[in-house]
């Protein structure tokens, strides 16, 4: 079980390294331009996986406060009751906690997943699709010019004049 918890603690970080290296390998070693573009996309999404893994917190919920929680404890209590109905252990505790503090309008940072990496990664996804679009446009221009997407064939044509 110790091994399992060790793997679970680091698996996401390992996975991001593997994905990043898969993408980097395609970018460096592949001969086909569209394959390189696919590798580039994988390379970029690996970073997104890394950031999202940073943001995750055990026992926390998604970073959306319960509706109308400007009424504070009331809403949190409702939220807790709702979660308790679903029977999750951790969330039920949280519910008890929320009910206990029903009077104070406090949002606990521990209960919510870190939203900042999510925001950064929305931007990174957008940058990724923008780069993909421009790269595909350039690849199409290259194809129109040389009639092939293979780099060695293009170099052959360039050498032959």
């Amino acid at each position, binding site marked *: 079980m110790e091994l399992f918890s060790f793997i679970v603690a680091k698996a996401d970080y390992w996975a991001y390294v593997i994905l990043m290296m898969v993408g980097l390998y395609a970018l460096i070693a592949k001969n086909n331009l569209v394959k390189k573009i696919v590798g580039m996309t994988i*390379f*970029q999404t690996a970073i997104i996986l890394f950031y999202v893994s940073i943001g995750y917190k055990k026992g926390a919920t998604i970073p959306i406060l319960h509706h109308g929680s400007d009424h504070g404890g009331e809403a949190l209590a409702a939220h807790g009751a709702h979660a308790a109905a679903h029977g999750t252990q951790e969330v039920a505790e949280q519910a008890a906690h929320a009910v206990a503090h029903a009077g104070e309008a406090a949002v606990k940072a521990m209960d919510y997943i870190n939203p900042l990496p999510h925001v950064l990664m929305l*931007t990174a996804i957008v*940058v990724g699709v923008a780069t993909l679009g421009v*790269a595909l446009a350039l690849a199409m*221009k*290259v194809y129109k*010019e040389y009639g092939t997407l293979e780099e060695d064939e293009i170099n052959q044509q*360039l050498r032959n004049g």
Partner: protein
Amino acid sequence: MTSNLPALVIIVPLLASLVAAGAGWFNRKAPFYIAVIALLISFISSVLLLAQVVATGVAIEYQMAGWPAPVGIVYVIDHLSAMVLVVITFVAFVNLIGNRQAVETEFKNKEGAFNALYVLFTAGLVGMTATGDAFNLYVLLEIASLSGYALIGLGSSRAPLATLNYLFLGTIGATFYLLGVGYLYIATGSLNMADLATIIPSMMNSSTILFAFIICLTGLLVKMAIFPVHGWLPGAYSESSTVSAGLIAPLTTKVTIYIMVRICLTLFTPEYTFGYIDPTDIMVAIAVASIIFGSLSALAQKDFKRMLSYIIIAEVGYMVGGFFLGNRMGVSGAILHIVNDAAMTLALFMAAGIFIWKTGDEKQSSLKGLYAKMPFTMAGFTLAALSVVGVPPTCGFFSKWYLISGGIAAGQYLFVGALIFSSLINAVLFFRIFEIALFEPFKSHHHAGDEEDKVESHHGETIVDPGVIESAQQYSGSDSHDHGAIVIKEPPLPMLVPFLGVCVLLLILGLYSGSIVNNIIHFAIPAGII
């Protein structure tokens, strides 16, 4: 409005690019003027910012959306960034007004999109320079890169492939930078540069911070095309159209070097960069390799723009090496060279634009006899070339002087040797061109420039050099008989005046380099560096 200057310097170009992109669908002339006005406003604001910073001596902080530093995004304008802002907006403005004809012919029916991307590129660089947030820097870096790819990709028939290679390497560089920011975030939980600078000294021994430093630096080195990863630069710059090359070649590498300086000094603090990691030896070795490789490859080129591209690789080596010497002389030299090299590269690429307009191709051999044909242009070109070689009193001499003294002070004699070697090579390169242009008679194989003149003269816009008024017919007649009198035929004034202005600026920068160093760069370097 004065308190909003840091925002104006970037949002005016941003808004103008949006208006230009829309206006291009209704009017073909409007986008150009919108772009020029926006860049002028941006230039004036950055000059005002520089004046304000020099006068008060404190950095200006501007809170975007009204949130204070670690929570929101702030802009920080200090001596260094204000100076680089002036350089960026000046280069963008002068290059655009100097290349109006080229824009109209090369980007026909797409003026809106072209001008919008041109201004967006400038806005991206301005934002990168002014921002005080590590992640915001990445977003702006991508804006500058994407618009740069588009501008470069529409050049000669080989341009798309060169640009695609640039895109792949650029994406690797930017993604590495993003990963480095992620490592910093996982170790410290902050994204603001000033906030990070307060946290990092307390966790010097963290391997995550070390790796963040390595990976950020790697990403930026890929972006600035230093020796082992330079492959994309010559193709991308020499295949693109002159107006794009004139914007991107002087700015991209220099701003990336500025970012490196900013990351090393402001974010990772000098104590960490030079005290704890101390990468001087390895970085100077890479820089020396870059200088020697760039100079030798430039020697082998027949194409003028390609030769300039390899000189840029050598110049990147100057600045990286100078900065990592880690003493005040070397860092001052590197920062001064950012300014000087931007001006020199702009002058040379504008000269390349004029040569292409005149002769129709980029071969050095087609520059024959140009001294007699275009005395003003060639005078400016000579000044720019001497500056690259490093002849006093042009500006190139002074930054090299600082770099060499820094190298001697740090005991890096290899770097000093490489600098002198590269200057000699540059001398050989440019004197070879002088020889071709001065002694061999002009023979135009391509009448591209002349034909343009004829079309122009229909609209009555041809501006011949004052004093010598020759009709286009007479000119081409005398040209077909090689023994005819040499006729002075300068490019039209809108092309010539900005170019000559930049060349005179090279002299002014040289003469005032002492006061630039004492009044601006001196305050830009943290006191920790001696």
